[in-house]
C-alpha cells in the first residue's frame, strides 16, 4: 500500500515538474520578446542580461500613436473577424450538406478543398496577384490592397480546415433530430439554427477562433496583396527590417501587441479547444 502511495506521489510530483519545465520553456522566448520590447536600441547592444529593470515606453507609444499602425491594427481586426465569420458560416453550411446529403463526388470535393491548403504559397503569389490586379477589376478599382481581397484569399486555407474540423462534429449529431424537426414542419434553416448550431457550438467556436488566429497572423499573402490601405499588423512587423538597421525594440513591442487579441481568444475558448479538436474521429 505504501509503495503505491509513494509511487502516486512521485507520479504527481513528476507531472508537476514536467509541466513547470514545459511552462518555462514556452514562456522564456515570449519573456525575451518582452525584454527586447522594453529596451532602447542602445541598450540592446549591452550584454544579454536576463533581467529588465526599466521600461522604454517609446517602443510601444511610437507605433501605437502613429496613424499608420493604428490603421494596420484596425485592418487586422476587421479582416480577421470578417474572415472568421465568413468561414464559420460557409463551413457550417458546407459540412451540413456533406453530412446529410449524398452529394456526388463528395469525397473528391472534400479532398479538393484540402489541396487548397497544401499549395506552397510562393508560386501562387503571382497568379493571385494578377487575379487581384488584372482580372478582378471593375473600372479603376481592383481587389488589390482591399480588405475584401484578403478576407477572400484567406478562405483558401481557413475554409478547408474549418470544414475538416466541423465535419466530424456535425456527423456526430444524430440525423434523427433533424428528421424529428422536419416532421414538425421546420425548414432546413430552422434546423440549422435551432438544432445543429447549438449542438455544434464548441466546434464552431474553435473554428472561429482558429480561423481568426490564422488570418490575424498571416504574413505572405498580406504582404503581397496589400499596399497602403489594407495593410495588416504582421506586414507592419516586416517593415522594421531595413538597410539601416532593424528596430528590434519597436518590432518586439508590436509583436507583443499583436499577441494580445489571440491571447484573449485563447483564454475565452480554452475550455472548448480539447473537445473541438477531435476532428470527429472518435464518436460519442
Amino acid at each position: 500500500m505504501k509503495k503505491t502511495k509513494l509511487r502516486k506521489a512521485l507520479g504527481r510530483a513528476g507531472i508537476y515538474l514536467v509541466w513547470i519545465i514545459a511552462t518555462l520553456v514556452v514562456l522564456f522566448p515570449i519573456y525575451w520578446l518582452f525584454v527586447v520590447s522594453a529596451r532602447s536600441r542602445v541598450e540592446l547592444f549591452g550584454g544579454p542580461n536576463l533581467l529588465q529593470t526599466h521600461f522604454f515606453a517609446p517602443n510601444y507609444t511610437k507605433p501605437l500613436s502613429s496613424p499608420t499602425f493604428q490603421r494596420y491594427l484596425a485592418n487586422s481586426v476587421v479582416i480577421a473577424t470578417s474572415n472568421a465569420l465568413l468561414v464559420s458560416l460557409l463551413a457550417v453550411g458546407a459540412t451540413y450538406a456533406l453530412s446529410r446529403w449524398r452529394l456526388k463526388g463528395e469525397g473528391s470535393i472534400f479532398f479538393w478543398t484540402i489541396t487548397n491548403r497544401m499549395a506552397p504559397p510562393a508560386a501562387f503569389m503571382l497568379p493571385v496577384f494578377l487575379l487581384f490586379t488584372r482580372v478582378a477589376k471593375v473600372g479603376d478599382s481592383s481587389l488589390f490592397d482591399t480588405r475584401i481581397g484578403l478576407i477572400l484569399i484567406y478562405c483558401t486555407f481557413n475554409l478547408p480546415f474549418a470544414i475538416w474540423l466541423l465535419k466530424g462534429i456535425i456527423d456526430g449529431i444524430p440525423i434523427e433530430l433533424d428528421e424529428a424537426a422536419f416532421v414538425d414542419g421546420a425548414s432546413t434553416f430552422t434546423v440549422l439554427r435551432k438544432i445543429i448550431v447549438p449542438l455544434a457550438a464548441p466546434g464552431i467556436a474553435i473554428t472561429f477562433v482558429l480561423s481568426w488566429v490564422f488570418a490575424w497572423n498571416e504574413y505572405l499573402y498580406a504582404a503581397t496583396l496589400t499596399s497602403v490601405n489594407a495593410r495588416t499588423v504582421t506586414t507592419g512587423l516586416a517593415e522594421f527590417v531595413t538597410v539601416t538597421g532593424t528596430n528590434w525594440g519597436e518590432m518586439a513591442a508590436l509583436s507583443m501587441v499583436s499577441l494580445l487579441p489571440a491571447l484573449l481568444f485563447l483564454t475565452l475558448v480554452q475550455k472548448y479547444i480539447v473537445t473541438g479538436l477531435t476532428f470527429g474521429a472518435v464518436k460519442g
Partner: protein
Amino acid sequence: MGWGLIAPTLIVLAIIGLIPFFYVIYIGFFDWNIFSAKAGMVFVGVNNYRRLVFDEDFLRALWRTLQFMFWAVGSEFVLGYLLAQTLVRDFRGKAFFRTVHALPLMIAPIAIGATWRLLTIPGFGPIPYYLSKWFGIDYNIGRFASHASLTVVLMDIWHWTPFVTLCLLAGLTSLPKEPLEQALVDGANRWQVFRYITLPAIMPVVLTTFFIRVMDALRVVDEIWMLTGGGPGDTTRYIGLHIWRIVFPKTDYGYGSAMSLLTLYFTIVLCWMVFTAIMSRGQETS
C-alpha cells in the same frame, strides 16, 4: 438543397483557388524570367519538369525538408503524446498549464522567427552567450549548419507541439475507459496497453494531426526566413523557402511554377497515402 448549402463554399474556392491554380499550371510550361534578354514567355513544354527531375538544388531542398519534417514532427508527436497523457487526469492548475502551453500557437510565425532570432543571434542573444559562458559551447547558427538545423527544429517543436498535444488530448479524453481497465486487470504492461488498445483507438486523430503537420511543414516560409534566411548556405533552405527564392528574387516565374506544382504533387501523394489510411481506419472503428 444540399448543393445549395455547399455552393457558396465551392464558388469562393473555385474563384480564388482554382483560377490561380490553372494559371500556375499554364505558366509552368513556359520559360519566363522577367530579366532575360528575350522578354516575355517562351513555350518550352515539359522542359521545366524535365529539368526539375535532375535539379540537384531542388531535390536536396526536398530531402532537407523531409528530414526536417521527420525530426520536428516526430518529436512533436512523442512530446505531444506524453504531455497529453498527463493532461487526461485532473490535477491542480491543469487548466492554467494547458492554456499557457497553447500560447505559441497564437503568435504570428513571423514574430516567432523574429523572437528566436533575437534569442540565438551570436553576439547579441542570450542563448549563445550563456551557452558559451556556462558550458563553453560555441553556438553559432550563422556558421555551423548543424546548429542552424537544430535550432530550426527546436523552434518548430516549440511552436507546434501544443497543437499536437491538444489534438491527442482530444482523442484520449474521448476514449472509453473499459478496454483500458480490462487490459490492466488482465496483466498487460504499459507498452502493451499503448500499442494494442490506445494507439489503434486514437489512430484517426493521430493520422489527421499528422496530415496537417506534414502539410504545414512542407509550406513553412516566414519563420525560417526570419530566423536563418535559409542559411547557413542552404542548410535550412526548405522547399517552401527555395521556391520563394526562385520565384521572387530570381524572378524565374516559369521554373518556379513548375517546381511549385511538382511539390504540390509530391505533397498530395504523401498525404493521399495518409488520407486513405484515415478513411480505412475510420471505417474500421465505426
